[in-house]
C-alpha cells in the first residue's frame, strides 16, 4: 500500500517536472526502488514531489504549467460553475435566474408565452453543455492538447453565440448576454496567448536539443 502510494506520488513528481526534466524524473524513479528497500520510499517520493514543485517556477515549462493551472482553476472552472448555475435556474448578474427571467418574460409579453416556455429546455441544455464544454476545455489545456483546445473552443463559441442570440431575442437587452460575450472574449484571448507561449517554449526546447 505504502509502495503504491509512493509510486503514485513519484508519478505526480515526474509529471510536474515536465519534458525538459524527463531524465531527472527517471533518475528519481530509479532511486525509489533503493529507498523502498530501506522502508523510506514514501518519504523519498514526497521529497521528490517537493523538489519538482520547487523546480516549476524556475523552468520556463514549469511556469507555463503553473499558469495554465491557474487559468483553468481560476477562470475556466468558475465559468463552468456559472453555466451550471444558469442551467439549474440560479441567478447571475443580479437577475432573477433563467427560470425567473423566462417566467417574467412570459408574464410581460403573454403573446410570446408559448415561445418562452418552448425555449426553456433548449436554453437550459445549452447552458449545461457550455458548462461541460468549459470543463473539457480546462482539461485539454492542462493536457496541452492544442488541436483539442481549438475543437472544444470552437464548439463553446458556437454554443455561446447561440445562447447570446437566444437571450438577446427573448430577454430584450439582457446584461447577461454582454457578460457572456466579455467572458468569452477574455477566454479566447487568454487561450491564444497560452498557445503562443507554448509554441515559443517548444521552439526553444527544439533549438536547445539541436544545438
Amino acid at each position: 500500500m505504502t509502495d503504491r502510494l509512493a509510486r503514485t506520488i513519484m508519478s505526480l513528481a515526474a509529471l510536474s517536472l515536465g519534458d525538459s526534466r524527463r531524465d531527472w524524473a527517471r533518475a528519481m524513479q530509479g532511486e525509489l526502488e533503493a529507498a523502498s528497500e530501506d522502508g523510506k520510499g514514501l518519504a523519498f517520493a514526497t521529497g521528490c514531489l517537493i523538489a519538482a514543485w520547487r523546480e516549476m517556477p524556475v523552468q520556463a515549462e514549469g511556469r507555463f504549467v503553473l499558469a495554465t493551472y491557474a487559468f483553468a482553476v481560476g477562470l475556466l472552472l468558475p465559468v463552468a460553475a456559472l453555466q451550471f448555475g444558469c442551467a439549474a435556474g440560479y441567478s447571475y448578474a443580479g437577475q432573477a435566474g433563467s427560470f425567473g427571467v423566462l417566467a417574467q418574460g412570459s408574464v410581460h409579453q403573454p403573446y410570446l408565452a408559448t415561445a418562452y416556455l418552448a425555449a426553456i429546455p433548449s436554453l437550459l441544455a445549452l447552458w449545461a453543455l457550455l458548462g461541460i464544454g468549459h470543463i473539457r476545455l480546462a482539461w485539454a489545456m492542462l493536457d496541452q492538447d492544442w488541436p483539442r483546445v481549438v475543437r472544444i473552443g470552437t464548439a463553446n463559441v458556437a454554443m455561446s453565440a447561440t445562447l447570446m442570440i437566444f437571450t438577446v431575442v427573448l430577454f430584450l437587452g439582457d446584461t447577461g448576454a454582454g457578460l457572456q460575450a466579455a467572458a468569452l472574449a477574455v477566454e479566447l484571448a487568454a487561450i491564444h496567448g497560452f498557445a503562443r507561449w507554448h509554441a515559443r517554449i517548444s521552439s526553444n526546447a527544439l533549438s536547445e536539443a539541436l544545438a
Partner: protein
Amino acid sequence: MPRNRRPSKQMLMVLEALSSGGRQWRHGYDLMKETGLQSGTLYPLLMRMTGQGLVEAEWREPAQPGRPARHAYRLTVAGVAFARAGVGSDTTLSGKAALA
C-alpha cells in the same frame, strides 16, 4: 553560467560526499544517506550543479534484471577544483573560474 555566490552548506555537503573516494560514480540515494539530505533538497542541488558543469550524470545498468536503470553522479574536473576551493577555504570562486 558562472557561479558567484558562496556555496550553501548543503552544496558543500554534496561536494564533500562526491569528492570523497576520488571521482567515483555515486547514486542519488547513496548520496542522501551519506549527507543526510532529503530528496527534496538533494535533487534540486544536483540539477543546479549539473547545469553549472560541476557534476556529470550517467545512466548505469541495473544491478539486477527487472530493476530500473539508475542515474549516477560524479564531480567534473571543474567540480573537483570547485570542491577543493569551496570545501577547503570556503571560497567564492565559480566552478569555471576555479578551473581556469
